[in-house]
């Protein structure tokens, strides 16, 4: 039961390294074809970010194929099979700024700083993930090919 609490507090305590403001990205259709970094993303690092409740925060909302992860959220689609449903370019836009596809979405825009309101000083003018982290997450999501693989560790 004790582990069931403090989710919101945990989000707030994320240690943040200073980061540069996001560089402009080129959106083509529903995708960002050009990777944000020259170096290719690393799926293993990406997985670590996705399951990290302070960095990626993804599992606060999503379930996915993560049998080792307790307390996955149920506010968003299952991540299992995301790499089969979407190309890397499409995944990139969904992480960078999903609000370009659905203005009402609750999914945070991970690589955007403008148009936000009352951001706490520690997070001001910093994207949630930096360019390399976005590429790592995209590389990991691309490996999620099996839609039936979910662990569905419901809360």
């Amino acid at each position, binding site marked *: *039961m004790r*582990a*069931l*609490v*403090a*989710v*919101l*507090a945990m*989000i*707030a305590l994320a240690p943040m390294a200073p980061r540069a403001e996001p560089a402009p990205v080129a959106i083509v259709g529903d995708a960002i074809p050009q990777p944000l970094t020259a170096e290719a993303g690393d799926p293993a690092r990406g997985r670590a970010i996705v399951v990290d*409740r302070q960095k990626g*925060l993804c*599992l*606060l*909302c999503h379930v996915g194929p993560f049998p080792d992860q*307790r*307390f*996955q*959220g*149920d*506010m968003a689609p299952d991540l299992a099979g995301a790499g089969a449903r979407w190309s890397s370019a499409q995944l990139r836009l969904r992480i960078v700024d999903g*609000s*370009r*596809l*659905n*203005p*009402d*979405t*609750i999914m*945070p*825009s991970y690589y955007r700083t403008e*148009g*936000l*309101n*009352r*951001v*706490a*000083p*520690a*997070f*001001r003018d*910093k994207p*949630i993930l930096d360019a390399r982290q976005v590429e790592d997450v995209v590389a990991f999501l691309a490996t999620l090919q099996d839609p039936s693989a979910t662990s569905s560790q*419901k*809360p």
Partner: protein
Amino acid sequence: MNPAARIGGLALIAMLGAFAARAQIADADRKSGAAFMSAQTQEMQRDDGANPGMLAALDGESLWNARTGGAGKSCADCHGEAQTGMKGVAARYPAFNEASAAPIDLQGRINLCRQDQQKATPLAPESRDLLALSAFIGLQSRGMPTAPPDDPRLTPFRERGRALWSQRMGQLNFSCAQCHDDNWGKHLGSAPIPQAHANAYPIYRLEWQGMGLLQRRLRNCMSGVRAQAFPYGAQEFVELELFLAERARGMPVETPGVRP
């Protein structure tokens, strides 16, 4: 969320992002925050012998009767028995304060009495004594329906609270409404999202291992989305409290609540 609403355009994003008008919870679907807790925690709230908030209320009772400040007066010297004089009072706060021509919440009222009547220093936000008095006064309304006053002077303030409720904020860019109107009953990680009715405050929260007032909860929600929380006592909080009271109109007061 709504696939029908998949429209692009930055202007729209800014507009909808700022004030997405969303589904309000129907009266019949309203649930106290306690409904989202485990049976064990519910029982803890129900049982006065186990509810740690009752200890704070007991402290509050001694403070109610203690003479203090330059005037050497107790709350009881002016208001008499709290069981009669304070019955239903917490259920109708925040209320309009003539002197400041602005709404004040119960804590604001307590501190005005301390300053003006008792000639004592105001109690600090979330201080032990303010929690205790709030719990004790709240207890006198337990079981009574939340009944915000029909005072037209409150309307502009409540409407500002309503606007704040649906304004996205913080690095994670959430509005209160997106969690509490649109996604209540779902889970944020392990935490069930309640409807955010404020009818049990102050509460004893197991995670805090202590009591907290509503503003402490609201500050938690704001920093959770990485927004800069309003300072304790900010007018914005009183405006949000006015809106929350209206939203919970008719729901029975449960003070002191227990939360995980």
